[in-house]
Structures are given as C-alpha cells and as structure tokens.
C-alpha cells in the first residue's frame, strides 16, 4: 500500500511517498508561493511524476505543517486527515531513530521541542511560533545583513576564531547589531558564529523547559546547517543525532500516519 505525507511548511512544501510504511519511493519539495494550495499541489504532482504514480494509486494522504489547512478538502491532494506538526514530527523521528526521546524541529518560522513516548506518540511539547529570532528566518535575515548566502552561513560560522556575544534577542535589533559589528571590523566568520550561538541559546532554553532526555534528535531545515549543531550540543550538554533528510521527517511522519489511518478502516 502506498501512502503520502505532505508537510506544508512556512517556506517549503515537502512530500514523501511511502510504500507499506517502509520504503520511501520518492521525496519532493518546493518553495511556498503566494498561493499555498498551488505550491503544495505542484510539489505533490512532482512526487507522483517521480514515482510514476497517479493520485488514485495513493491509498491515503495525511497533511501537516502550518499551511496544511490550505489543502484541506481540496483536490487533487485532498488529504484524509490533517495533523499538527508535533504529531508528525514525533512519528517520523521515532520511525527513523527508535531510541529518540526528545525531538527538536527548527523550521523557517517555528521552533518546536517534542517529548516522544511509546510508539512515537507525543508526550509533551513546546512551540515558538511568535518570534522570528527562534526560527530559521533569523539566520536568513542575518545572512542578508552580512551579505552572505544563507547556505554559507553555517560553514562560515565554523571558521570563526573568536566567540563574541550578541546582545540583541530580537531579529530586527540583531540586524542593527550585525551592522554595528561589521563597522567595528569584527570578521564575518566571528559574527556568523555569534549569530548561530545566539540562536542555539534560544532554542536550548525553549527545549530545556520541556526537559532533555536522550536520545535527542534534531530535524527540520536548520538541521542542515552545520554551524547550528555544535553550539546546540554545547548548550544542551548532550549528543544530538541528525537523521538523513532531516527536513522530510514531518512529511515522513505524515505518510506513516496515513498508513495507520488506512489500516483502521
């Protein structure tokens, strides 16, 4: 049986097509445009095309992500169910790393911490969806201030020679602080490190409210950023596991939930 998970994020749509809850047939993603439904549909159809499948061959679809309501009850995706991100995150991460107890998901506009119980069920969670300084947008905004590509930010931070503090906690204020640091001749590498350190500090303090239990797993787009992992490990004082394709974990979880939904029929 083939199921699909569609994760309609703030910035990207991610889709996973899954066979029998085991084999990932294909993954596809695309940027979320003005019309969220259209962006999600395009990504979904790209995935079908990749796998050489048609919509009616997908037994069940579950959607998640902050834009999930834009595709609810709308063909062609017409998901059988929509679920909050934390549920999909827990399911997907537990499937990939069964020892996972704490999941940290940092996306473009939200940061989440999830405590996972038996069989990938959510025990508790914390979310920041109100402040850009605790999400990927922070790194993106700072990259613009530094005039560096967003993908170069992490590698740049790893080349830093000094640890300098950032005082601003707000994305808007941090932008001005970065400009001030540039003017006072601090190297871009050191500034990039300061940016990642500050962000890791904020995510860590959010997750610490939840309590950290091993194994800790980092997912979401920020898990791709090599500059973010070292300060986060340091702040939480623990090893952190990152699965392959960390940005697809929510979509994978949704596809697994789709199989469960279908099995209950």
């Amino acid at each position, binding site marked *: 049986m083939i199921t699909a998970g569609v994760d309609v994020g703030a910035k990207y749509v991610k889709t996973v097509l899954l066979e029998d809850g085991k084999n990932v047939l294909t993954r596809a993603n695309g940027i979320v445009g*003005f019309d969220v439904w259209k962006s999600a549909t395009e990504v979904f159809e790209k995935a079908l095309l990749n796998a050489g499948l048609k919509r009616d061959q997908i037994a069940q679809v579950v959607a998640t992500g902050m834009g999930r309501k834009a595709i609810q009850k709308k063909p062609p995706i017409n998901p059988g169910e929509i679920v909050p991100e934390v549920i999909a995150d827990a399911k997907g991460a537990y499937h990939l790393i069964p020892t996972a107890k704490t999941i940290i998901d940092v996306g473009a*506009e939200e940061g989440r911490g999830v405590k996972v119980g038996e069989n990938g069920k959510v025990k508790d969670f914390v979310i920041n969806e*109100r*402040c*850009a*300084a605790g999400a990927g*947008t922070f790194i993106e*905004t700072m990259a613009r201030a530094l005039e560096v590509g967003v993908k170069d930010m992490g590698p740049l931070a790893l080349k830093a020679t000094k640890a300098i503090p950032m005082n601003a*906690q*707000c*994305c*808007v*204020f941090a932008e*001005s602080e970065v400009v*001030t640091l540039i*003017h006072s001749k601090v190297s871009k590498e050191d500034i990039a490190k300061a940016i990642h350190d500050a962000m890791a500090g904020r995510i860590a303090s959010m997750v610490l409210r939840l309590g950290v239990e091993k194994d800790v797993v980092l997912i979401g787009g920020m898990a791709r950023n090599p500059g973010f992992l070292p300060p986060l490990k340091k702040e939480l004082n623990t090893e952190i596991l990152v699965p392959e394709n960390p940005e697809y974990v929510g979509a994978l979880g949704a596809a697994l939930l789709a199989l469960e939904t279908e099995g209950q029929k």
Partner: protein
Amino acid sequence: MSEKSREFWRWREYRHTQPDMDWHEAKMVTAGVDIGSVGSKAVVMLDGKLYAYSVMRTGGVSEETAIKVTNWALEGTGLKNENVHYVVGTGYGRVNVPFAKRTITEIACHARGAHYIYGPTVRTVLDIGGQDCKAIRCDEKGKVMSFLMNDKCAAGTGRGLEVFADLIRVSIEEVGKVSLNVTKEPPPVSNTCVIFAKAESVALLRQGWPKEKVAAAYHLAMVNRIIDLLTKVGIEKDFVITGGVAKNIGIASRLETNLGIKPLEPKLDPILAGAIGAALFAKALYEKQIGLR
C-alpha cells in the same frame, strides 16, 4: 534622491533656541544629553528653563554623536562647552557621553522630563522610543514609583514602525496619518514579531488591501501590544506619551480610543522628555555641588 532609494524611515533632524532668553543672565546653565538607540537629543536649560535643544539620529559611534548633538544644541547661542555648569547623560548610550559628570537612567529622566513638560498631574508616562517601550508610574514630583519595559522585542517600538514605513514606502513622519485614512478599523495584524508582521502585511497588500488599511492593521496591533504593557503596570490619570513615537498620530489616537483615556496635549516636543529630565537632574546636582542644597 530617487524614489526607489529613498529612505522612508529617515526623519528630519532639527534644533531650536528660545529667542526670548539670554544665557548671560542665567545663574545655572545645565545640559541633558539623551543618547537613544535611534535618536539623540541634547537640551540646554537656564536655571531650569528650556533654552536650546537639538535632535538628531544616533550614529555608529555614540561618543561622536554625543559631541555632535551637544555642539548643535549650543550652535548660534554663543555658549561654549565650558559655560555649561553641569551635564547629565541618559539613554541607551548614556555611558558614552564623555563630558557628562553623571549618568542617570532614562526611566528616571523621562518621568522627570514629563513632569516638566506636562505638569505635576502626570501619573503615567508611556515612553515609546526607537528600540524600547516603557510604561512608568510616577508621583506628583515626577519621581518614579514603578515601571515596566520592553527592550527585547522590536514589536511596539519605533524601529518596528520604521520597518513598516519602509515596506509601504511612506515617510515615517506621515505613516501614522496615513493609517487613520480608513473608514473602519480593520482587524489588527495577527503576528507580534515585526519580521512576521511584515510578511503578513505583504500578504495583505497582495490581497489587494490599500496601504492605508494595512497601515491601520499594523498600527492597531502595535497599540494592542503597548496597551498590554500599560495594563500590567496599571494606568492612572493623567496619562502622557513621550518619545519619538508620541508624534505618530496613528498610535496616539488609537491609544486614546482603545484605552478610553485622553493623553495630555504636549506643550513641548515630547521627544525631549528624557533630555529635559537629565538637564533638570543636572541642575539639582549642580546646586548640591555648589552648596545650594
């Protein structure tokens, strides 16, 4: 400057001297220098009365700005630095006023300055600056009783308004007026964070909302946030607004409507409150120094 590269956040810098006053007749010449995160203000007072002032944008180096803004306030008056008996520094960059004998927090200075500008009936001072927002309760002498401050988040500060003015390409001095150009108040922008609120505003503009309506939604969200702060500290009449954002009619009028309390009309430029407070503290400190107190 071309329309495209115009900086909509940039406001006019200015200075003023009271024409009917003569510093030669003054016993005490004191100055207050308020180095804010966005704007810097210097005032010169003669025996505790406002004589000259200047307002300019804070530059990259606070020390330089402190010297520039003070020199500008003195410009044309014939006063020299050495004629000023006592200088107090305040504001975010107060430690960087090289010629200040003392520094005093902007909270104390704003309460004291509001007392001077609006009179002894002031009990609640709302100061909305470039990078912070403070709600201050004070007594009949202008002494601080309690306060609450947001200096962590750009939402509800002048900087948040600057970002928005740039987005809709309306001058920061006009954006408040523009926001009132609606027949009915729209629902407020739902995001608190300036970054997210900006993205939400873009989406509203794309949906075809006129910029006046988006401006109204943005101002309203900001006002709601400021009211949260005011409610926490407790609001008692008389109520006044100081700081640069006090000049934004879109904020001031919505505060009045939604609080149901009319703020007192300022008799002087409300951006000067902090610097005036500092200059008054300077006078008191100088009196103490020469044994008058």
